[in-house]
């Protein structure tokens, strides 16, 4: 029996989200299964920020969309605050929507162009019954807008009157206004100009620290992840290949894929050997047998081509799904 203190806020086990790809003619045609997420497990403690990184198409966004029930899970469980939530009906899940919120990538697409900021922000407040009076709702909107660094006067405007950074602040306000416990940030700053990225990122970090929110920070940008996360999970073709505390991941990566990712961060310092081009990931619709990374892996052996590796505990919270995980580190030392 675990107590409240040690129970993670979110416990995801063997999460699977598969899509059926239909191709061919009006009558029948062939069906293909795309395993966007195929057996993802992780824990997220209260107040913790977990980064999920990986290349495009590795399924990291689908993990976020499945946990907010925007996509239906094919299998697995996700316990939120001790309650399994993937099997809940849509109606039974609705109260939980207040506690699980999502920041979207594209601030130009995530706000309804026809609604004023006040209308957009009032919606979740009204739905979840957080304020009942018109004045109460307005006061709460004003408070939240100030919190995200916007003038409360802007609430009567429409989204097209704002810049990308301002819109993302509005998107963050929509999340913060319901005081959630878990925020899933799906590439929250990737669509912004680099100069704006840092501002918005710091805002997210500050808000997270102030209110002790747990956060799933999905990104392909390792620099951003390094700035904001406590722990990082690396995904490859629908699976987590390595999980480690931030410092360990960046200083002593275990999985060859993590090392490839770290090596491909562009650097300005001269004299560095450029990252080896190891090609593109295989399609999630036709993953290779055994370890999905073996066609690109520099240390792949026969076992990698036939057997799918399970996560190995390397101590200090580092897990690596590689057949060579423990051994090759010894060799390197």
């Amino acid at each position, binding site marked *: 029996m675990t107590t409240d203190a040690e129970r993670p806020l979110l416990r995801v086990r063997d999460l699977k989200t598969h899509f059926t790809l239909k191709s061919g003619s009006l009558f029948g045609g062939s069906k293909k299964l795309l395993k966007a997420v195929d057996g993802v497990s992780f824990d997220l403690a209260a107040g913790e920020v977990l980064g999920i990184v990986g290349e495009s198409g590795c399924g990291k966004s689908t993990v976020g*969309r499945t946990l*907010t029930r*925007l996509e239906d899970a094919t299998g697995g469980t996700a316990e939120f605050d001790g309650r399994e939530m993937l099997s809940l009906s849509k109606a039974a899940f*609705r109260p939980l*929507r*207040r506690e699980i*919120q*999502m920041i*979207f*990538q*594209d601030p*130009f*697409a*995530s*706000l*309804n*162009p*026809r*609604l004023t900021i006040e209308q957009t922000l009032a*919606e*979740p407040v009204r*739905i*979840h019954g957080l304020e009942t009076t018109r004045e109460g709702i307005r006061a709460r909107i004003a408070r939240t807008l100030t919190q995200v660094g916007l003038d409360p006067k802007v609430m009567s405007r*429409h*989204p*097209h009157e704002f810049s990308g950074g301002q819109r993302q602040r509005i*998107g963050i306000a*929509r999340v913060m206004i*319901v005081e959630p416990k878990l925020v899933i940030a799906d590439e929250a700053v990737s669509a912004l100009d680099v100069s704006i990225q840092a501002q918005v990122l710091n805002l997210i970090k500050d808000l997270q620290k102030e209110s002790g929110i747990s956060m799933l920070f999905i990104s392909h940008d390792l620099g951003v992840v390094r700035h904001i996360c406590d722990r990082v999970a690396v995904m490859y073709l629908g699976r987590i290949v390595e999980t480690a505390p931030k410092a360990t991941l960046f200083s002593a990566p275990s999985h060859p894929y993590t090392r490839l990712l770290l090596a491909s961060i562009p650097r300005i310092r001269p004299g560095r050997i450029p990252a080896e081009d190891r090609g593109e990931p295989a399609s999630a619709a036709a993953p290779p047998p055994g370890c999905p990374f073996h066609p690109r892996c520099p240390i792949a052996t026969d076992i990698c081509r036939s057997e799918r590796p399970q996560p190995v505990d390397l101590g200090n919270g580092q897990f690596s799904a590689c057949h060579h995980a423990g051994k090759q580190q010894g060799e390197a030392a």
Partner: protein
Amino acid sequence: MTPNATIQWFATGRRIFRGRWLATLGLAWLVLVVLAAVFAPLIVPFDPLEIDPVARLTEPGAAHFFGTDHFGRDTFSRSIYGARMAIVIGLGSVLVALLVGGLTGMISAYFTRLGAFLMRVVDVLMAFPALLLALVLMTLLERSVMNTVLVIGIVYATTTARILFGMTLKLKNEVFIDAAVCSGAGHASILFRHILPNLISPLLVQASFIFAFAQLQAAALDFLGLGLPPEVPSWGNMLSESRIYVTRAPWLLLFPGALIILSVFSMNLVGDALRDSIDPRFKNDIKGV
């Protein structure tokens, strides 16, 4: 707020009609028709139903601007009241078409399983030419203003459903819909608060075309003796009655015919201007839509 809104409406109007003098003329004509319809009782010199056997088939002149018909009824007065019928038929058909078609299209796109069935029904209805479908439905029903409006509305509901189906299908995959779901919004709220306001412009354009086509359909039905009851002074009915006397009293054909042509042409011009103004290819101020 209100004077501001008025100024905005005026600015939008200017943007749509600037440099389109034909469409502006069309709009002016439509305004004239609407005014005639609203103030009909104040304008007409005679009761449109009053029979005057002495003045049968009088040529247009000082007393009867548009002449009289075979019952001695004043054609000008009947034409003015005809404008009333034109607007009633137009607005009624637009309302029915947008309500029935719009809802069908939106719901079909949103609930895909139900939509697969509903849209096949729409496809079947669309397989018939508009006039043929209207004819079949009208022969089943009694001649009345209400039934004419319903039938014409249903005929044009099919195209409206098709258009809104496509647009809703696109809109429901927008990120802001996902965001609304995450905020806890239900189906009704998503359909009517988030999707519908984004469909207003295409609906407006669609309405202007239905309004125009409804005139033609109503005139055709009247002419075939299947539309409005014969005593109702509509342009179509007047045209229908005129054909027997066309050699002796050509003004009976000329005036209602010209009114129909002018009005439909005007509505199409205004509809074109509206459509061009929302088509992104003609738009120079795209604002996040």
